[in-house]
Each structure stands twice: as structure tokens, then as C-alpha cells.
């Protein structure tokens, strides 16, 4: 699929400094048409700066951005075929919901009946029909989020940029919006570039993830590739949890959920014995903390087993689930 897909955004050798800090450091990135790409990284890793450079709010010090084959590096935001959903939503407080959504169409001088129809349709798309004459202050966080989404999508941009749009929502709403966003993206078929520092969010929603660290992309790949085969220590620690175990003189990395804990049963070609130090019940699974015989501390995340603290247990896993890095 990747071979045949068209490249929408092409970033080459992009750099941007703020004072002495190199926020973005020689980044290359190709984004395919219609994909959901997440820029994932801790705060200050440069992901938001890359997004703002694509939108045109920041100028690059070096490098180029091509949008649909056209070099837009030096163009102002209003001449780029992208729209942004802001972290604080940035809804115009003096306009009602409908006027907010119509703003981009009004700028483009789209005539009234079409403008109204498209705005209503966008409102319906985010399931807010009937909220058109409310002011943003009268909406909840989740509703504002949807208005911001509708305001951007109504312009039918070739790329939608989302800057941590779910950051201000509570967990339940956040999980619901993750699913809705993904569905919406499939429905409209627009390329989404999504910035987040939440690795779970990135894994849930993305077609591909670019992991940022200190202004550079550490790894780019599908959620599975990133999770199961991290290419650097940073990625393995930032995305998911990792056990670093000294095993037969070699340092290996393995995810907690690939390690089984049992009194007698082995499942996998690697085994290690130890004492169960603690078992923390966290709903769907339990976190087992085991002091292994070789002095290492190992974490396993598995469904609840009939074990008690102090039991001697066998840890086992498949060697193919290990990764280097």
C-alpha cells in the first residue's frame, strides 16, 4: 500500500532553533495521502514545532516543506491548504458555533446558501446539529473540541493538523473521542497529522507513528512496529513499559505482558525463577513484581493468577519477543 500511496507532505532537512535550543534538528518525513500519522514525543521534543511549521505559524531556519508537490516553506498560513485543530480549540468567543464554522468559508467568499449547507453538514458530522447558535462559552470541553474539528474540516483541507486536541479532556471522553476521531478520519479520507505525548493515544489511533526525541525522529513505523520492535532505548522506554534483564550474561529487553508468571508451568523457551514480591490488581490485568534469582527485578502484566506474595514462581517468555536496542 505504501508504495502506491501518494505523498501529501514531504519534509526535508527541517531545522528550527529558539535561541540556543534546537527545537527541530534536521528532520526528514514523508506523509502519505489519507493516512493518520502521529507525532509522538515528550514535551519539548519538537513535535509541536514541526506541526506549527507545516501550518505556517513558524518559519523553518533550514529545510523545505512540500505540500501536494508544491514548496510552501515560505508561504503564510492563509496560503496553505491545511487546517489546524488547536490545543485550546481557539474558537472565536464572540461568534456563535455556526459563525465559527463558517469563518473559513466566509473568507473564501463562498456564497451564502452553500456556506450554510456545508456548515450544517459539518456540524452534523461532529454530532452537534442544533448547537449552531450557541456561543463557545456555553459548550462543554468535548463539544468545543468537536466545533474546532468541524471548523477545520468544513474547508476540506488536504491535510488536517491536530495539536494535542484531546489533552484537556477527561479520560472517559478522551477515549471516546479517540475512537470518533479515527472513524471521522476514515470517513472523510483526509490526511491527519496528530501531535500527542500520550503513547496509548498514539498506539490506538495511528496508521503510523513518528517518535520524536530532542528535535529528531527516533523511529517511524506502524504502532505494532514501534511497540514490538523499538529501534532505540528511548523508544522502548517512551512507548510502553520495558523490562531490562541481564539474562545469561546478555542484556535483553522484553515487554511485561510477554512474561508469564506461574508456580510450575512454563510457556516459552526462556525461563527464570524467583520470588513473587508483590501483585497489584489493576482491573483487567495484574502487575506482578518478581525478585528473580539472578538479582534482577522483573515486572509481568497478566490476568490474575492464583498466586500469593512470597511464592516461588517461574518466569517464562518467548525469545522472539525480546528486542535489542
Amino acid at each position, binding site marked *: 500500500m505504501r508504495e502506491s500511496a501518494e505523498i501529501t507532505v514531504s519534509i526535508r532537512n527541517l531545522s528550527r532553533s529558539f535561541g540556543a535550543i534546537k527545537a527541530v534538528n534536521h528532520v526528514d518525513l514523508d506523509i502519505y495521502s489519507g493516512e493518520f500519522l502521529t507525532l509522538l514525543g515528550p514535551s519539548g521534543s519538537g513535535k509541536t514545532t514541526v506541526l506549527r511549521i507545516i*501550518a*505556517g*505559524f513558524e518559519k523553518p531556519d533550514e529545510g523545505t516543506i512540500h505540500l501536494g508537490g508544491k514548496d510552501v516553506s515560505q508561504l*503564510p*498560513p*492563509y496560503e496553505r491548504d*491545511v*487546517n*489546524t485543530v*488547536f*490545543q*485550546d480549540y*481557539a*474558537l*472565536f*468567543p*464572540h461568534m456563535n458555533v455556526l459563525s465559527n464554522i463558517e*469563518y*473559513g468559508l466566509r*473568507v*473564501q467568499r463562498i456564497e451564502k446558501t452553500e456556506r450554510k449547507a456545508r456548515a450544517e453538514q459539518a456540524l452534523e458530522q461532529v454530532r452537534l446539529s442544533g448547537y449552531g447558535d450557541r456561543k463557545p462559552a456555553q459548550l462543554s470541553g468535548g463539544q468545543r473540541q468537536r466545533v474546532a474539528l468541524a*471548523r*477545520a474540516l468544513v*474547508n476540506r483541507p488536504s491535510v488536517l493538523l491536530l495539536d494535542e486536541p484531546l489533552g484537556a479532556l477527561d479520560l472517559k471522553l478522551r477515549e471516546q473521542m479517540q475512537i470518533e476521531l479515527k472513524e471521522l478520519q476514515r470517513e472523510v479520507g483526509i490526511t491527519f497529522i496528530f501531535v500527542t505525548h500520550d503513547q496509548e493515544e498514539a498506539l490506538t489511533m495511528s496508521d503510523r507513528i513518528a517518535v520524536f526525541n530532542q528535535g529528531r525522529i527516533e523511529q517511524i513505523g506502524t504502532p505494532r512496529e514501534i511497540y514490538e520492535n523499538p529501534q532505540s532505548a528511548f523508544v522502548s522506554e517512551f512507548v510502553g513499559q520495558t523490562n531490562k534483564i541481564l539474562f545469561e550474561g546478555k542484556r535483553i529487553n522484553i515487554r511485561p505482558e510477554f512474561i508469564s508468571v506461574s508456580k510450575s508451568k512454563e510457556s516459552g523457551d526462556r525461563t527464570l525463577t524467583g520470588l513473587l514480591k508483590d501483585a497489584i490488581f489493576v482491573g483487567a490485568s495484574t502487575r506482578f513484581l518478581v525478585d528473580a534469582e539472578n538479582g534482577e527485578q522483573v515486572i509481568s502484566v497478566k490476568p490474575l493468577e492464583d498466586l500469593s506474595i512470597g511464592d516461588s514462581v517461574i518466569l517464562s517468555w518467548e525469545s522472539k519477543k525480546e528486542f535489542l536496542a
Partner: protein
Amino acid sequence: MGRVNNSLASWMHKRPKVRLLALLAAPGLWLVIAYLGALGALLITAFFTINNFTGDTIPGFSLGNFHDMVTDPAYRNVMFRTLGIALSVTLICSVIAIPMAFFMAKVAKPRSQKFLVALVLTPLWASYLVKIYAWRSMLEPKTGVIDWLLSPLGIHSPGFGGPAIIIGLSYLWLPYMILPIYAGLERLPNSLLDASGDLGAHNFYTFRKVILPLIFPSLVAGSMFTFSLSLGDYITAQIIGGKLQMLGNVVYQNFSINLPFAATIATIPVTIMALYLWLVRRTGALASL
């Protein structure tokens, strides 16, 4: 003593209304006696008359002063002139203050921001008279600073008169316009400006559709200063106004010879200000101030 305080405190604690009354007593008295009292005295005096021979004020109720004021075209002219000057000053201050405040709030680096605010405030530390006399020496025809500097370029000082008053008052009240607009722009999130550009709007469109409506309450706050302060001013007109008179000058002149008439004239700016506030209230700007 401590025990008395304690028991008083607990007595007050149970009576929120008494507490509120005690808190508001001083400002309330000030408002009623010093402020409304003076205004009331002004209004009442406006209906008094004087003994033409002795010049003594005679209490009573007569609409004669108002009749004189309305029928004499000279006073009508002064009124419209004063109104025109106050409006021009407000307009000039807004036009200068908006870009300045925008630069201070959105363009300048945080460190220079504080410095710029201090700079805007500095003229307020100097006496009003000093500043107006400074303008007098600037505007003086032929020998003034403006003519001396700019006459080789063919630009001449407007001399003393209406334009000089407008320049002087605009200079005096500019900080009162800049500061509220600066505060309003500082509260305006940058993301709104980004969002407008992102949705395709050029800078001027963003200014008209996003910035201006959102700083309108600040603009109104600033205009209340520039407009009302100009409306009541008479010293500037005296020093750089040439022969031109404003309402304040008429009040000042009549103060010693015909106090009731001075009071009658003084009701004009009060009425205009009341009308202005009523208009502003109708726009809803006061609600979000």
C-alpha cells in the same frame, strides 16, 4: 481588649449583612456626599438666578439660564466645538494606541514589553501644566520647535487654535487609551490569531473580524477616559487654544460673575457623558469590561 475583639468578631461573623454594611460604609458615604452631593448641588444651582446689580446668587427655580444657553448661538457653537474636539481626540488616540498596544502585547519580547509599558506611563509622572507649556513652546509660530525644525521642509506649525488643542489633548490622554487596549490584547490568546490565519484570513481581515471585536470593550474603556477628560478640559484650550473656547472655559469665565449660569453650562458635558455611557451600554461593551 482581645476578648472584646473576639466577641465582636464572632457577633459579626453570624451577621453577613452587618458585615457588608460595615465594609461599604466608608466608600458609600464618599460616593453619596462627595460625589453625588457635588453633582446634585451643580444641578440645583443651574436653576438659580443672580441679582444683576449685585451679582448675588438668588436661590429659586428658573429655566432662564437654560433658555439663554440654548438660544444663544455662541454657546451652541462652543458645545459642538467641544464635542468635535473630544471626538477627534478619542479617534486619534485610538488610531495611535491600537498599533502601539498591539506591538507591545503581541510583537515585543516579554522583557521589552515591561519596558514599553513603563515608557508609556512615564509622561503621567510629569505635571499636566509642564506638558502643555512644552507643547506651547513646540507649537509657537516662527520661534517654536516645530517651525524651527520643519519649516525647511515646508511644514509649518498649525499655530494656536483648534488643531493645537486636539494635538495637545491627544498627547495628554494617549496613555489612558494605550493601557486598556494593551490589557485587552494581552488577554487575547495568540491561538485565535493563528486560527484566523489558518482558516485563510489575511491580517487585515483578522484585525477586523477577530481582534477589533474582541478588544472593543477595552477601546470603550479607553475612550471613556479620552472623551470625558477632553470634554471637561479648559487649561489646554487656555494655553494653546489661541482665542478658541471650550465648554470648560465658558464655565471658568462665568464662575465668578454668574455662578448659576456656569452650573448650567456644566450640565452639558455631564449630559453628553451620560448619553455616551447609555450608548456604550447598548452595545453591550460594558458587560464584558
